[in-house]
């Protein structure tokens, strides 16, 4: 029931938000998302740490097809729901007052929050797919309506790209559904059973179908080319949503749906997909070296980070999975923070071009400090949030195969190179023409960034707080195969 | 005997059908078409469907062909206004149609070895037909009234000049 409450509440606020007087639009959206956050925090704090799904609700939806409205949360879901509900208020709060058509913007954000929560709690394949796709619509419009110059082409590409994957996933889901024992059903357990009973050949083919969907969403090299364009052209809040939460959908899909359903498919293809992921880590990282546009640089860094997460998850051992989960949280938090910083810089100077910036620290020490801390999280310095995840992931991959671990480990060097380069050229040095009149963080901006900074350190120092929540679910997952 | 009759009528039908297509003057085409219909009506008689044969002549050769003639006259098409297609396209048309024929004939030939005894059935007699038509086929018969109504309304609607 709590889950239904979450979904309905977010949906209702999204609707109501359309009709709220513009003056109160921001406050309304922020407060309602804050309520959602507080409620989910309550759920999180009282969450019983077992491997079973909690708060399960099961309604029959389309009887004739065995489709149910079945939702529930286990340790993995609850973390991602938390991530969503934590970031959404921040993202909403970070919207600038000057944004045109604010009500639609907030409503789309809230609507998206609903869809994302839905994705993370679905226990029915069909429902999952519906939420998966629904989440795409608001972000599409956010990018289309408030995006940059080349948005038409880019958003369409983004949409078709992601839909390509999803449609293949749909085919895969239907195929699995038709192999569920007895009365066909989309229930997650039934799909697990169905998937496992398939021949190795069928599993491999389905594996690639699903991989396409999740791989594009994340994105994994070489399915990533929609991403840098979209990130750099979308409005910052859209980028935050995309990178902070939405790409976790792909990773979550891997963990929740793909791997448990197709264990043989995984074991036969893990080699290839892991090498792809690792190639992505290096490839995107190296490309990030010379990016001039800050958003683009972060976009590539995101690909690089996600490649690592994917590799860890495909390695499919305790470290890899747990690392993946904690890294999902920390990556979400870091990347939202970083994109917001970029947004601040852009709104002050009108440019994201690294070369024309510099010396911001002289004018805005707070910004510089906050940026530095979040960046350190991104480069996985111990005691920041990036470290536990990255360490676990690398060791997970290493455990799977030494060479891979060693190669993927290069990320800690590469990441440092591009991040520090960017930091140095934008924040340090002498002021440039663009940054001469730079002003430091406003109270509102601090209100967004400080929670992020706190989370960066909190996860770094006490990762156990989160790891222990997902542990039973992960163990069950590992044991189930 | 009947076989020869069949063949002769068939020959006429085919020949005049070809003339319909190849005649340059539309009026000639219409007349050849009438000839074809007569030949086909002859075949009907051969099959002991006298009523249909008569109807065929009345409806087709009579009504429809007059309609055609009427339109041709109305549109003043009795002279050769039709710009002919290029040889290539005509050739393609002939080939395509020939192809279709070959394929159809090929697919149907040897499908079965049934034979018909002409003049030996009474199914085509008017009384039988009447029974079937107004008993079994009453509903289609009535529904075809709607068809005619629709065609009539349509033709009138298209034909009449709008009062502007």
């Amino acid at each position: 029931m709590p889950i239904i409450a979450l979904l309905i509440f977010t949906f209702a606020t999204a609707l109501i938000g359309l009709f709220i007087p513009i003056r109160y639009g921001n406050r309304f959206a922020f407060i309602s998302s804050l309520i959602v956050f507080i409620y989910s925090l309550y759920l999180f704090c009282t969450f019983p740490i077992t491997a079973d799904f909690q708060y399960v609700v099961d309604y029959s939806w389309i009887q004739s097809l065995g489709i149910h409205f079945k939702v529930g949360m286990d340790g993995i879901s609850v973390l991602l729901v938390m991530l969503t509900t934590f970031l959404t208020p921040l993202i909403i709060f970070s919207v600038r007052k000057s944004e045109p058509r604010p009500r639609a913007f907030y409503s789309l954000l809230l609507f998206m929050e609903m869809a994302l929560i839905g994705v993370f709690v679905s226990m029915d394949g069909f429902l999952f797919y519906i939420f998966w796709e629904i989440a795409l619509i608001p972000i599409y419009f956010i990018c289309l309506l408030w995006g940059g110059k080349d948005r038409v082409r880019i958003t369409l590409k983004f949409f078709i790209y992601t839909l390509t994957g999803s449609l293949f996933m749909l085919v895969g889901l239907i195929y699995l559904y038709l192999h569920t024992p007895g009365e066909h059903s989309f229930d997650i357990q039934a799909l697990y059973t169905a998937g496992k009973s398939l021949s190795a050949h069928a599993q491999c083919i389905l594996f690639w179908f699903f991989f396409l969907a999740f791989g594009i969403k994340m994105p994994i090299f070489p399915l990533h080319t929609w991403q840098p364009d979209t990130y750099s052209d979308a409005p910052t809040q859209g980028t935050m949503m995309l990178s902070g939460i939405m790409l976790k959908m792909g990773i979550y899909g891997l963990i929740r749906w793909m791997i448990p359903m197709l264990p043989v498919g995984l074991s036969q293809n893990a080699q290839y997909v892991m090498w792809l992921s690792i190639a992505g880590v290096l490839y995107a990282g190296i490309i990030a070296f010379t990016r001039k546009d800050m958003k683009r640089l972060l976009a590539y860094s995101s690909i690089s980070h996600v490649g690592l997460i994917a590799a860890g998850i495909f390695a499919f051992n305790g470290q890899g999975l747990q690392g993946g989960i904690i890294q999902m949280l920390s990556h979400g938090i870091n990347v939202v923070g970083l994109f917001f910083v970029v947004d601040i810089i852009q709104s002050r100077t009108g440019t994201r071009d690294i070369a024309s910036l510099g010396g911001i620290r002289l004018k805005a020490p707070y910004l510089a400090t906050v940026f530095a801390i979040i960046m350190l999280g991104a480069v996985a310095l111990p005691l920041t949030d990036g470290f536990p995840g990255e360490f676990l992931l690398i060791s997970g991959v290493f455990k799977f195969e030494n060479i891979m671990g060693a190669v993927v480990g290069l990320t800690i060097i590469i990441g440092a190179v591009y991040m520090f380069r960017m930091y140095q050229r934008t924040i340090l040095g002498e002021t440039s023409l663009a940054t001469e009149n730079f002003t430091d963080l406003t109270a509102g901006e601090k209100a967004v960034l400080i929670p992020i900074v706190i989370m960066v350190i909190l996860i770094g120092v006490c990762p156990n707080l989160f790891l222990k929540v997902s542990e039973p679910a992960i163990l069950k997952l590992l044991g189930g195969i | 005997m009947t076989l020869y009759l069949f063949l002769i009528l068939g020959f006429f039908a085919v020949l005049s059908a070809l003339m319909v297509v190849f005649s340059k003057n539309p009026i000639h085409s219409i007349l050849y078409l009438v000839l074809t219909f007569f030949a086909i009506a002859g075949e009907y008689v051969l099959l002991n469907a006298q009523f249909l044969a008569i109807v065929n002549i009345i409806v087709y050769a009579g009504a429809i062909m007059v309609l055609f003639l009427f339109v041709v006259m109305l549109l003043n098409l009795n002279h050769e206004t039709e710009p002919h297609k290029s040889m290539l396209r005509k050739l393609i048309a002939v080939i395509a149609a020939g192809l279709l024929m070959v394929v159809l004939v090929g697919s149907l030939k040897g499908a079965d070895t049934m034979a018909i005894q002409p003049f030996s059935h009474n199914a085509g007699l008017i009384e039988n037909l009447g029974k079937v038509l107004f008993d079994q086929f009453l509903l289609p018969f009535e529904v075809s009234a709607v068809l005619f109504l629709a065609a009539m309304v349509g033709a009138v609607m298209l034909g009449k000049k709008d009062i502007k």
Partner: protein
Amino acid sequence: MNTLIILSALGVVALFAEIFRFRKGLFPLILIGLAAAFFFTAKEYNHPQVFFGMMNFDNYAVIFSCAILIIAFLWFMMAKNYFLQETSVTDHFALILFSLVGAVVMVSFNNLTMLFLGIEILSVSVYVLAASDKTNVMSNESGFKYFLMGSFATGFLLFGITLIYGVTGSFDLTTIQHNLSTGRETYMALAGVLLLMIGLGFKSSLAPFHFWAPDVYEGAPTTVTTYMATVVKTAAFAAFYRLFSLCFWQLAAHWTDVLSWMVVLTLFIGNVSAVRQRSVKRMLAYSSVAHAGYIAIAIVAMSVPSTCAILYYTFTYSISSLSAFTILFIVSRHKGSKDISAFEGMSKANPLLSFTMTVAMLSLAGIPPTAGFFAKYYVFYTAINHGFTWLVLVAVLAALVGIYYYFRVIIAIYFKPEQQLVPIKVGPLHRTVLIITTILTLLFGLFPNLVLGWL
């Protein structure tokens, strides 16, 4: 049967209205009549009746009739304004009502004679309607092309019927089915089946017999195009499926591969051709061809769920198309252009039109939570269930191309800066139609059981 009587009577009344100067009251009367027809049809649900062995009003027929009546009802609401400016309103209404008779016959036939007559009644009316904008050469051309090709295709359809008759000695579906199952003369029967498939494929615009569709759709008055894309298409597929599922399923092994290749071709041509269209109307025409391809997948994978798939798909597709065409109608009348540029930047001044158009496009593109998604889902499900996974993969690729052109409309609506902020006036009837179609699109998308539950 009642349905037929009511519809025919309404048609005749419409004709007389011209004579008795009853035009004003005609429109409400027709709506009431349609509602009554719907009521009497619905009453026959679960009471299958056979009339003279010619019509079988089973649940399939009842539900498709109801669907057609609902669509027709909405269509009348949409088309009213258009016809009021014409002098021959009553003729139009009468023709539509007659054609509805044909459509109802097509979904309930139990005899090839009825099928043939049904198709012809529907076609003849629509030939005329397509050409009904008499002074417009486009409309003339459209009607002429439709007529010429339609009657040509009728020839093949008839040939097919004849061959079937030759093999089975009957026009009655039950007898045909029975006689075919004894396996006699399969060869000729198969030729008959293929020719019937070609004839019906023409009516439902499957490639390579689709060529008429884009031209005719574009040239015909928008309201008539709407009618063709909705009622005619629904009836055509209902008839197609009814015939093939009742009579020819034993021969499925022989014709599914042909049909599946036709589907592939249709999906390809329909979707790919739509990409470069500037005219929204023509784009929708191609999209209509493409959708025929998706629906035909359900026929290829003939099995129990196919019925539901076809019902759901045709019905929801009709509703979404109705919505899209209505907006196109409104916009093109306002801007004087059917070009996609007419839609540019209308989002700010016309939130209702923009929103409903977006929903319609999403539905046609098959994006959840709209009905279009579930329709595609159900078709895919049917096909995979029947082992036609490869066909589904083709359809998936086609759907991706589809996104491309449907989204161009959405982009035009939202993206381009507003050139003029004049809100387009939307009449109350149109408004009602749009709201109803949009709500139905979303409602059926979320609760497909509302449609599926009946079959």
